[in-house]
């Protein structure tokens, strides 16, 4: 016959299943919210919605695991903490570009356009001002 383990405290630890589930939902929504708002330049640059979701996930997850001793709850909270650290690193480390300073005058160029026709900046400028948009790539 097995003896049930005696709880160390007189009261059983509170179970915070709802809170940890909501924290997981917020964690999943964090990158999705940034993706959905990618066409808004301010949200795209600041990642504000993703930050808020991540903060909510961390708050809910850590506060749930604080008193809830079940292993999976602690594992989820730990995963969320790891995601938070990764997100911080991605935003403040990986995504930071080297400092760049274009010259005061635009160097002239001749480049092929999408159809292979050469385009020369100086001759385009004869028609009027030009907006040059440098972008990372087609992806």
């Amino acid at each position, binding site marked *: 016959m097995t003896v049930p383990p005696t709880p160390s405290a007189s009261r059983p630890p509170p179970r915070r299943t709802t809170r940890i589930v909501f924290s997981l939902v917020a964690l999943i929504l964090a990158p999705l919210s940034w993706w959905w708002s990618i066409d808004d330049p301010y949200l795209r640059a600041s990642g504000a919605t993703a930050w808020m979701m991540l903060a909510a996930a961390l708050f809910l997850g850590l506060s749930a695991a604080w008193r809830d001793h079940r292993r999976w709850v602690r594992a989820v909270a730990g995963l969320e903490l790891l995601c938070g650290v990764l997100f911080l690193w991605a935003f403040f480390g990986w995504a930071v570009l080297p400092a760049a300073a274009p010259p005061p005058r*635009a160097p002239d160029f001749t480049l092929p356009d999408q159809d292979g026709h050469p385009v020369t900046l100086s001759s385009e400028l004869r028609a009027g*001002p030009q907006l*040059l948009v440098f972008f990372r790539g087609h992806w």
Partner: protein
Amino acid sequence: MRARGGGILAISADDLEEARSLRAEEELPFRVLSAAGLPLLDDYGLAHPEGGLEGETIAIPAELLVAPDGAIVWQHVAGRITDRAPPLRILAAIDEHFPVRGP
């Protein structure tokens, strides 16, 4: 820009094929230029070495407004890979530097 006689030129280190498919897929109304393998990005101080998916040099995202005399009168250079100039700020800069005079 058209009302001012000018235009928009998009530039990246993509090759011609990628430029063509990008313009078609996104239905871009402006020309997409290819600076693949050329020192242009260095000339503009906008090279990001090993920034590409395969470690190639690509452009740092930037928007430059160039006056007919070649001077860069307004610019926005990204500090992070997700940084882009808000379209309204670009339009405001165009209005400020190249106002369209009414009849």
